[in-house]
């Protein structure tokens, strides 16, 4: 395949957020806050806002353009693990702009490394600025999100996230960066519409995915209670969707099925709830920086083996959708109990990624320092973190107009190489933040994979 020779211009500061940024002791410590501080997110999430939060169920039309009815159909993007603020995050922008979504949902980790906010405007201290506001500047659409583990690492233990997405406290910031603020009703929510065949439910899995509760730091102290409130709310919403005969897409950050095995150890109640509602058709997560799809049969087997649930009538796929711009995680893992039906990048592509990233990293003085070597020996994915716009992915959801043959489609979009998106004959300079990217249609088509 011939690759274009366009000169893609990234913002100057995007190159400062690569491996060097992560290796700074301040950021290294902040990004490993899960090891250093206890997890009380089941309590924290209820202290952020008012004691009686607004209705968590919001119509799609609130996120659509004025005058645009949900029954006319609309499309939106589901993406996760975006917030590194580096070239790999910016690398997805041309595709995101190309599809002209009505709104976008980010499933966590949108302000790495630690969801910090700094009033001084220093992007190295303000993760929301570098990982969210600057990359999506002038996108001009509403962006909803769910908190990931990194958003809970901040000093305010997630308060920064809540203030940004669920209140008007930072309305000025949204306005300054040309983004439309539609405050979320909380850290977990539902999007639905009477006419729409699909319901989207977003859940908050907290700092470590301990929705069932868990012991405190180093197993000292009293146990954190389970988030019964969120579970009750989810049950109620799923019962209603079952009753209305709607399809539900459930989104949350930390996956329960990852790399072919059970992952979320303290989300068993969540799995049991999901296994008992036929309306749930897709479960989309993030956290792991790759794309993995688990077929309905595999998910059935997973529920039966792990939870002893009867799965008659359950047809749900699980998707790990964490390739939204952060440095990739390895995908050359051994086959395990639960087979991954689609994987991106696959093992061969992963080798290419590591090779190209490794070549860049070898030229970096940081890789030769003791700290660099230590970090890379702990997590080998760092060896390939060359900050390249390669093998990124997201989901494109099209809700069709009323009466269409397929009420909605969920399409995985896999971008192998940003440079391939431009016509092989094109030359010249391309601004990565150009809102009207001139992409090569044939290649964009190749990015669209079979619907889920």
């Amino acid at each position, binding site marked *: 395949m011939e690759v274009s020779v366009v000169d893609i211009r990234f913002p100057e500061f995007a190159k400062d957020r690569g491996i060097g940024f992560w290796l700074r002791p301040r950021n290294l410590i902040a990004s490993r806050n899960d090891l250093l501080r206890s997890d009380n997110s089941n309590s924290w999430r209820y202290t952020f806002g008012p004691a009686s939060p607004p209705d968590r169920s919001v119509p799609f039309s609130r996120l659509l353009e004025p005058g645009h009815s949900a029954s006319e159909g609309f499309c939106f993007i589901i993406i996760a693990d975006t917030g590194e603020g580096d070239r790999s995050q910016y690398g997805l922008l041309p595709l995101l702009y190309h599809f002209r979504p009505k709104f976008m949902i980010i499933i966590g980790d949108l302000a790495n490394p630690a969801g910090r906010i700094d009033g001084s405007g220093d992007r190295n201290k303000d993760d929301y600025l570098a990982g969210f506001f600057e990359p999506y500047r002038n996108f001009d659409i509403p962006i909803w999100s769910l908190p990931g583990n990194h958003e809970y690492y*901040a000093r305010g233990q997630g308060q920064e996230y809540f203030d940004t997405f669920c209140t008007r*406290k930072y*309305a*000025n910031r949204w*306005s300054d960066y040309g983004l439309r603020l539609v405050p979320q009703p909380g850290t977990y929510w539902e999007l639905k519409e009477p006419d729409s065949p699909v319901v989207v439910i977003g859940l908050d899995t907290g700092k470590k995915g301990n929705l069932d509760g868990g012991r405190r730091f180093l197993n000292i102290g009293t146990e954190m209670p389970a988030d019964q409130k969120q579970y009750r709310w989810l049950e109620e919403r799923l019962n209603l969707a079952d009753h209305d005969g709607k399809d539900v897409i459930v989104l949350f950050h930390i996956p329960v099925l990852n790399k072919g095995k059970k992952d979320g150890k303290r989300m068993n109640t969540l799995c049991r709830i999901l296994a008992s509602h036929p309306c749930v058709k897709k479960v989309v997560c993030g956290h792991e920086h790759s794309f993995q799809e688990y077929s309905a049969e595999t998910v059935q087997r997973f529920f039966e083996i792990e939870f002893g649930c009867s799965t008659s009538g359950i047809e749900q796929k699980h998707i790990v959708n964490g390739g939204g711009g952060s440095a990739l995680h390895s995908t050359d893992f051994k086959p395990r109990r639960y087979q991954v039906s689609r994987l991106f990048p696959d093992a061969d592509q992963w080798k290419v990624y590591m090779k190209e990233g490794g070549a860049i990293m070898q030229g970096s003085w940081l890789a030769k320092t003791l700290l660099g070597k230590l970090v890379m020996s702990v997590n080998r994915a760092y060896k390939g973190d060359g900050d390249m716009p390669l093998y990124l992915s997201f989901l494109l959801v099209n809700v069709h107009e009323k009466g269409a043959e397929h009420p909605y489609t969920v399409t995985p979009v896999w971008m192998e190489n940003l440079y391939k998106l431009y016509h092989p004959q094109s030359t010249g300079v391309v601004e990565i933040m150009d809102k009207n990217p001139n992409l090569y249609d044939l290649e964009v088509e190749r990015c669209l994979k079979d619907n889920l």
Partner: protein
Amino acid sequence: MEGIQSQWLSALLGFAAFILGLSVLVQIIQESFKFLSSSKDRSYSRSLSDFLGPWAMQLKQACFTLTVRGPFQFLRIRPQGVLLPMDRDQLEAALIKTAPPWVLKTHQMLRQEMNWQCGTEKKPSQAWCRFLEDLGKADKGMLGYWNAYEITQWLSQWGHTLKKDSKNDRILGKINAPLTFGAKELCDSFQECFLSHVSDAKTNFPQFEKNFEYAYRRKNLKQTIFIALVISLAFDFSAGRIWKRAQRMSAKEAASLAETYLAMSEKITKGMEAEDSGKGQAEVMKNLEEVKILLTDYAKELSSIDRKSQDASFLQLIKFNEIAGRASAFSWAWIASWIKYIFQCLFTALLIGVGAPVWNDLVKFLLGLQQGKFKKPLPDYGGERG
């Protein structure tokens, strides 16, 4: 009246006087440090951040309207330092300033309209109509368009009508005001809709004040104990050494020492009062001078215990070999003597942490007992400790 002449009383008086002297010393250092480091303001900033969330730090940019020219700065700048304690109205005004321009403008116009209406429903003023005209011209793609759009949606709930412009569909259109409207109701609704976080902060302000007072007091106490511990460790003011010295004092010596430090304590208290009344900056500089004199006096007193040949005119830092005695380095006895020393210094620090006013009253009481002029201690210690 006959006074009580006892060796124990003299020792106790001497000990209390020493601790009073140290408390005064710590107080001087702490007050100077607090002034130079804007300790109260930093504490306020932190409390505000805890109370309102990290968002409160936006006020650093929003609430300063003055510009200053600092040392070696040729351009005038807005100060970006800590936040000074604000009262409720100041805080509200500052928080409102963090809102987006269209929200800010609408709020201002509604306040203006409210003043103009003086509590009765009237037809919209010229200024309000002009504002609506401007709002309707907000162009899609322009920064702030979505805020203008939301405000228009909100206005439509209050009798305003929007007519789209047939020639230009990128702008919001023409907004018409109703014949009459109550600006007060509109303003309240606007605040609830767009500035609810400001109203919450205003409602909960008394609780915030309490939180701040408590946090500041706690911080001061911690600071007092820390400074006291550092001084005790650095200059060997362990409780054991002070007690040994006090035991060797005659009644006359103890009384003289007590009177000296009582006088010093009162002088300092007066200085603090002057500071509170706004004459304090010169006092702080004077205090810094006094720290040196006091420390030298103190070292002189204590040096007469068991160090025969030292120059008491200058502060003696801790002599490590004396702490450990004759024990060989890193032996169990050596470690034990160090632990003992650290605990004794910690004990001194805790005693100092009780506060100069308490020691002042105790010394007065003991002096009264010794001299037969017993006075009842003051009922209220008052003021900040340390």
